[in-house]
């Protein structure tokens, strides 16, 4: 059984198998994002209180969900790398960290811009906003730590440990709006209850969230393949591949 796991963790095998998936992932994400953008910006109704500033939800919520999902992926990769020493997991973590940092930044930026007309401020130190800012610092710390060591393996281990410790922040972000008084409203989407808005408003949001997820899958797969090329650049199969494509 463990032999299969190690075969799955073989970079060469992953490179070969993931190739045919990429065009599908890219096109699916582009189609979903285009539909979601047109639907959310032009066709979804405005909110009765917030008017058209409500349309920011269609980028804010997907970015915030991806920022957290991406960190969960980092933590899972960290366990696999630290316990089983599977290098592929570390490669995926290397490329997922900048993606997550970008998504966290987008969530913070769009939230601030949305806060100006609705709340009357672009920033407040409430538990939700602060824990999201900590998430951004965790991402930046993981990226910096990986680069701070001369040996790649030490950098990978240090970054993995920070990802594992940082995963404690995820439940804090999620429950911050329930545990404490915050300016931020409770969650828009939940698995246990229906969204508190009509389908014509949440359907485009669902399309955008799926579009962001597909984009995440496509980018991380694509860049994991880049990382494989970088780390295995001295192996024969990579050399043959480079000569074939150029």
């Amino acid at each position, binding site marked *: 059984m*463990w032999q299969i796991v190690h075969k799955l963790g073989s970079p060469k095998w992953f490179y070969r198998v993931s190739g045919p998936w990429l065009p599908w992932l890219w096109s699916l994400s582009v189609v979903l994002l285009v539909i979601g953008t047109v639907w959310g910006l032009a066709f979804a*109704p*405005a*909110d*009765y*209180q*917030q008017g058209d500033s*409500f349309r920011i*939800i269609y980028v804010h919520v997907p970015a915030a969900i991806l920022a957290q999902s991406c960190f969960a992926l980092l933590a899972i990769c*960290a*366990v696999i790398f*630290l*316990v*089983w020493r599977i290098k592929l997991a570390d490669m995926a973590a290397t490329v997922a960290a900048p993606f997550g940092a970008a998504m966290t930044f987008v969530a913070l930026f769009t939230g601030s811009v949305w806060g100006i*007309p*609705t*709340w*009357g*401020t672009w920033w*407040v*130190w*409430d*538990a939700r906003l602060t824990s999201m800012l900590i998430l951004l610092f965790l991402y930046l710390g993981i990226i910096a730590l990986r680069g701070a060591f001369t040996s790649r393996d030490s950098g990978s281990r240090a970054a993995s*440990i920070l990802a*594992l*410790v940082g*995963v*404690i922040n995820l439940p*804090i972000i999620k429950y911050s*709006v*329930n*545990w*404490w*008084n*915050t*300016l931020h*409203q*409770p*969650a*828009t989407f*939940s698995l*246990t*209850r229906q969204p*508190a*808005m*009509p389908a*014509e*408003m949440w359907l485009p949001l669902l399309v955008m969230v799926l579009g962001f997820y597909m984009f995440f899958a496509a980018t991380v797969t694509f860049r994991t393949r880049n990382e494989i090329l970088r780390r295995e650049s001295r192996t024969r199969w990579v050399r043959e591949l480079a000569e074939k494509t150029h």
Partner: protein
Amino acid sequence: MTPKRKQRLYIVLGLVVLAGVAVGLTLYALRANLNLFYSPQQIVDGDAPIGRQIRAGGLVRVGSVQRSGDSLDVTFDVTDYRVSVPIHYNGILPDLFREGQGVVITGTLNDQGRFEASEVLAKHDEKYMPPEVAEVMKKANAKDVPAGYDPARDAFDSAESSTNAPADAPRS
């Protein structure tokens, strides 16, 4: 799993549990300080410091907003539908400020229990609806719901009470 891997797995899990306990204890120690604002009940009970800058949160009591004709002065009550705190503010109010709306106010409490606000922020809930639907609901509410009911009250309560009740308490 080889014994070596098993050992590493335990170390990793132990690390996460340890970090979780450390963070959990810190948050427990800070619990009151992590709240963004005091509720009207806490202010009336005297839990909020006097003369220091604090934040208060609650709903704008329906019918309490009084604007002065020639300046930006405005007074209103912030309420949790049990007790109210009178607020005085001089400045520009956010777009979402209206009677029945949730607000978070920065300012100082004076010894007469009056709150001098320096900033008023509007709080909204996670319920969104198109204007036409809101209009229909307002009409329906006017018919079957006792006078004084405001849908926003419900909204703020669900956000507020979630500290002591399950987050997904039944909503009307």
